[in-house]
C-alpha cells in the first residue's frame, strides 16, 4: 500500500471512530429519557443533586456515571447484545445450568432472595449452631425451568416456629391458626441426578413439629407432587401458577373443614405469554425459549374487593381488581403486593379469615374468597398496622400463614412477621415496644438503620446503595453492614427504619452501637 493510501485509511479510521463516539453522545442528549425500566422493574438513576458533600465523597460524580449508563441511547438493544456475546461464549447445556448470581447472594427484598445477614448478629438470643447464610443458594436451570436452590436449615425453623407460636399464645383458642409451608419448584422438579441444596418439604415438616399442637399444619407437598405434570409452577417465574395454588387450597379446605370448589367450577381466561422474574434475573436463553403463559382460573362467586389505605381502618378503601387487567404476569393476582386488602363474598358461614402472606399467597387468595365471608389479606413485608388489632376488632375466626420455605428460612422475613403482631393498640404498643427496646440497650447507645449487608465491600455504585446519599459502612467479622441515620433514641431509629421500608428496603433493621462498636 502506498503511503498516501495508508494515510487515507488512517484518516478514515479516525473519522469512523470519532463518528461513533460523537453520534452516541448526541443521541444521549437527543433521545427522550425514561424514568422507569420495564425490563428491570426499577426506577432508573436520576441525575444527581449537587451538594458539596456529595462532591467531596465522590458520590456526585459516581452518580453521573450511573446516570449515563442507565440512560444510554437504545439501552435495551445494548443489553440484548450483551446476551448474545455471553451466549456465544460457550455451549449452553440444553438441559441444565447452575447460576450463582449476585442477586441471589445478597440481602434483598424478595422472599425468595437470599438474606446474607450473619445470624449471630441478628439473633443472639437464639443459639444457632450452624449459621448458614440465608435460604436461596443460587438457581438451577433444568429443562427450561428456573429452580431456586434451597439453603435453609432447621436452625431457621426454630426461629420461625417461635414466632408462629407467639401468634397462637396471643389469641383465644377459638381462633384457628393454620401454617401452610410452601415448597417451590425444587421440591417437584429438581432432577435426582443433580440434587443441590436442602429439602424444602423436610424443612417444612420439621417446622411443623416445633409448632404448638393447636396450630394446624397444612401439608401440601405430597399432594401437589401428584400433579407435577400439570402446569402448576411457572418456568421463568419464581411463583406457582394459580392451578398449583388450587391444589394447596384443596388441602387447606380439608384442614379447615370447608368444601373446596371443584376445578370445573372456575372460568378459564387465557392472558397470553410472558417471561417472569427468573428470566429477568438471568436473561437465560433457555428460559426465554420455554417461556410461560398466564392462564387464570376465575372464581364465579360474587365479591367486593377493597384496597385499604389506612392500616387502622378496616372498612374504607378504594376498589381493587382480583385479576388486575393491566398486568399479564403473576403480578395480576389481587393486583400485586399490597399491604392490606379486604374481600367480602356472598358466602354466609360466619367465618372471617386473615391471610398473612407474601407474593406466593397472591394466587391463593381468589380460591379462599369462595369459602369465607370476609378475607383480609396482609402482605407482612409492607403492612404497618397491628394484626392483633385487626383480629380482635374484626371478629376474625381463622388465620392462615401460607409461607414459602425460602421465606420462613430468611431471618428478616421472620422478624417482619413477628413485628406486625403488635399486641394491644397498635400505636401505643409501638411506643411501648420502642421504649422497651431502648431499655435493652446500654446508655449512650447510638442507633442506626441497617439497609443491607454483604460479605464483601460495596461502594456507592452498588445498586442497593446508589440512591442513598449518605450512608456509613461498618465491618463486623467478615461482613460489611451498610447503615443510615444516627440517633440516640430507638423510636427515632424506628421511624427511619419505616421510611427505609417504604423506600423499598424491606429488610431494614435497627442496630445499636456503643463507642462505635456494634452491640450484639
Amino acid at each position, binding site marked *: *500500500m502506498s503511503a498516501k*493510501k495508508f*494515510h487515507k*485509511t*488512517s484518516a*478514515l*479510521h*479516525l473519522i*469512523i*471512530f*470519532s463518528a*461513533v*463516539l460523537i453520534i*452516541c*453522545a448526541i443521541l*444521549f442528549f437527543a433521545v427522550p429519557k425514561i424514568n422507569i425500566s420495564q*425490563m*428491570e*422493574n*426499577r*426506577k432508573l438513576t436520576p441525575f444527581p443533586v449537587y451538594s458539596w458533600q456529595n462532591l467531596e465523597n*465522590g458520590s456526585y*460524580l459516581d452518580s453521573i*456515571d*450511573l446516570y*449515563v*449508563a*442507565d440512560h*444510554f441511547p437504545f*439501552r435495551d438493544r*445494548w*443489553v440484548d*447484545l*450483551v446476551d448474545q*456475546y*455471553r451466549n*456465544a*461464549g*460457550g*455451549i*449452553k*447445556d440444553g438441559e441444565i*445450568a*447452575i447460576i*450463582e448470581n449476585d442477586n441471589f447472594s445478597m440481602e434483598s*427484598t424478595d422472599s*425468595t*432472595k437470599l438474606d446474607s445477614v450473619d445470624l449471630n448478629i441478628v439473633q443472639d438470643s437464639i443459639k444457632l449452631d450452624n449459621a448458614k*447464610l440465608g435460604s436461596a443458594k443460587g438457581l438451577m436451570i433444568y429443562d427450561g425451568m428456573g429452580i431456586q436452590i434451597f439453603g435453609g436449615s432447621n436452625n431457621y425453623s426454630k426461629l420461625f416456629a417461635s414466632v408462629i407460636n407467639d401468634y397462637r399464645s396471643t389469641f383465644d383458642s377459638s381462633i384457628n391458626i393454620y401454617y401452610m409451608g410452601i415448597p417451590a419448584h425444587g421440591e417437584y422438579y429438581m432432577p435426582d441426578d443433580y440434587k*443441590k441444596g436442602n429439602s424444602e418439604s423436610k424443612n417444612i415438616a420439621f417446622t411443623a413439629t416445633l409448632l404448638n399442637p393447636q396450630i394446624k399444619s397444612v401439608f401440601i407437598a405430597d399432594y401437589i407432587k401428584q400433579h407435577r405434570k400439570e402446569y402448576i409452577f411457572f418456568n421463568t417465574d419464581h411463583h406457582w401458577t394459580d392451578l398449583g395454588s388450587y391444589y394447596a387450597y384443596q388441602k387447606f379446605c380439608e384442614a379447615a373443614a370447608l368444601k373446596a370448589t371443584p376445578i370445573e367450577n372456575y372460568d378459564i381466561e387465557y392472558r397470553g405469554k410472558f417471561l417472569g*422474574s427468573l428470566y*429477568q434475573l438471568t*436473561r437465560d436463553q433457555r428460559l426465554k425459549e420455554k417461556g410461560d403463559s398466564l392462564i387464570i382460573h376465575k372464581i364465579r362467586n360474587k365479591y367486593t374487593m377493597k384496597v385499604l389505605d389506612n392500616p387502622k381502618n378496616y372498612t374504607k378503601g378504594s376498589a381493587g381488581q382480583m385479576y388486575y387487567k393491566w398486568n399479564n404476569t403473576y403480578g395480576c393476582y389481587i393486583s400485586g*403486593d399490597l399491604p392490606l386488602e379486604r374481600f367480602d363474598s356472598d358466602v354466609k358461614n360466619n367465618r372471617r379469615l386473615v391471610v398473612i402472606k407474601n407474593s406466593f399467597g397472591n394466587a391463593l387468595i381468589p380460591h379462599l374468597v369462595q369459602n369465607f365471608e370476609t378475607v383480609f389479606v396482609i402482605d407482612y413485608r409492607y403492612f404497618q398496622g397491628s394484626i392483633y388489632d385487626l383480629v380482635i376488632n374484626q371478629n376474625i375466626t381463622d388465620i392462615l400463614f401460607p409461607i414459602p420455605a425460602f421465606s420462613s428460612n430468611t431471618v428478616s422475613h421472620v422478624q417482619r412477621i413477628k413485628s406486625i403482631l403488635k399486641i394491644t393498640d397498635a400505636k401505643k404498643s409501638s411506643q411501648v415496644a420502642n421504649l422497651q427496646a431502648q431499655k435493652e440497650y446500654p446508655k449512650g447507645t447510638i442507633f442506626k438503620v441497617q439497609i443491607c449487608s454483604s*460479605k*464483601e465491600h460495596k461502594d456507592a455504585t452498588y*445498586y442497593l446503595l446508589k440512591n442513598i446519599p449518605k450512608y456509613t459502612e461498618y465491618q463486623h467479622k*467478615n461482613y460489611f453492614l451498610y447503615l443510615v441515620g444516627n440517633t440516640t433514641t430507638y423510636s427515632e431509629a424506628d421511624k427511619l427504619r419505616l421510611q427505609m421500608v417504604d*423506600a*423499598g428496603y424491606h429488610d431494614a433493621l435497627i442496630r445499636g452501637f456503643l463507642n462505635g462498636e456494634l452491640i450484639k
Partner: protein
Amino acid sequence: MVFASLTFLYFFLPLNLILYYCSNNANYRNFILTLFSFVFYAWGEPIWVFLLIFSATVDYLNGLFIEKYQGTIWAKLGIISTLIFNLGILFFFKYSGFIYDNVNAIFGTSFQFPKYSLPIGISFYTFQTISYVIDVYRGEVKAQRSWMKFMMFVSLYHQLVAGPIVRYSHIMNEIDTRKFRIRDISGGITRFCVGLFKKVAIANIAAELVVKYLDNPELSSLSTGEMWFGVIMFSIQIYFDFSGYSDMAIGLGRMFGFHYHENFNYPYIAKSATDFWRRWHISLGTFFRDYVYIPMGGNKKNGYLNLFVVWGLTGLWHGANWNFIFWGLFFGILIMLERLITFKRINKVPGFFLRIYLLLAVVLGWALFYFTDSSRLLTCFKSLFHVTDVPWWDYSLTLTIKENIYWMILAFVLCMPVYQFLVVRYRKVLLERNSNSLYWTGIAFSIFLLVISTALMVGKSYNPFIYYRF
C-alpha cells in the same frame, strides 16, 4: 474516572480530542491535556487531586534545585529530601495502617490509626517523580523548567492511575514537541479498543467467576477442581485487566502524540520466573532494577541479599499486606533457584516443560496474591493440593466450563502472541495481494471491539428486580 466507563468513552474522550486538536498552539495543547488530566483524576479523587498537584510541585522544584547545585552536597540533600518526601507520603497513605496493625499485633498495643482512603494511583505517580528526580541528579536528563509541562508529565491521565510507570526520559522530547501523525492516531485507536475489550470482555467476565469461587463464604466446601478453576480465572483476570489498562494507556498516548514503552510482553509464555518478570509489568521491574537493585550493588555485591530486598519491596508495592510480601519473596526464591541451577542447564530442558513450570508457579503465586486472609489462603492451598477432605470435582464446574468454553479459549489464545505471529507470517502477503480489504478489516475490527465493549459497559447497569423498587 476509569477508561472502561461510558462517561469517559462517549463524553470525556471525544471532548478532549476535539478541544486538543482545534488549535496548533503547543502551550494550549499542553494546558488542555493537563486540565483534562486533573478532571479525570478529580472524578474519582476530588480531594486528593490537590495532593497530586502539591507533590508534583515539590518534585518540580526539587529537580530545579538539584540541577542548580549539581555535584555539591546540596544536590545530595535535595535527592534525600525527595526520597523522604515521596516515600513519606506513600508510606503515610498506603502503609501506615499496615505498620500500626503489625505493631499492635506484636506489642499487644491498640494504637488507632486515622483511616484515610488510599489516593488512587499514588504508587504510580510517586515512583514516576522519584525516577525523574534521580535521573536529574544523575545528570541523565535536564530538569523541566516549565511547571505546566512538568504537571502534564505527572498527571497525564493515560497512565496516571494504573501505569505504566512512564520515565521522564522516555517522553521528554514529546513533552516539548509532539508531532501529529494520522498513522499514530489510527494505531492508537486500535490499541485502545483492544485494551478496552481485554478489560470489559475478558477481565470483567473472569472477575465474575473469581468472585463466584474464591469469594465463596464456604471456601472449604469447594472441590479441588473448582479451586484450581477459581485461581486460573484470577490469573486471567489480573493479566487482562492490567495489560488491557496498559494497552489503553499506550493507545491514548498515541492519539495525543506520546509513545510510552510497552508494559507487558505475553508474560504467560515465559519459560522462567526471570523471564516472566521481563514480560510482566515491565515498567515496575525496570524501576526496581535501575533505582534499587543496581544502586545496591546488583549481583556483584551481596547479590542474593539485594535480590530479596528488591523482591520483598516489589511485593510490598502491590499492597500493604504480608501476603504481597510473601508473593514477592516467592518470586525472589524462584529467581535465586534459577540462578543457582544456571541458565545453561535450564535451557537444556524442553521449552514445553519450562512453560508448564512457570505457569504453575505463576498461578500458585496469584493464589498467594489473592488471599489477604491467611486462613482462607491456607484453605485454598489445601484444596489445590487436595490434602483435605474435599471432592476432586463438582458437576456444576463442568457446566460452568462448558458455558464459558469459547470465551476461555479466546482468553487463553490471547495470552499468546497470536497477533504478532499472524503479522509476521501473513502481513506481507496480504499487503501485496489485497491491501484495501486488510485495512478495512482493521477498521471494522476496532469498531467491532468498541461496540462489544460498549454493550458490556451498558449491560453492567442492568439490575433487574423481582419486585418494583424505587
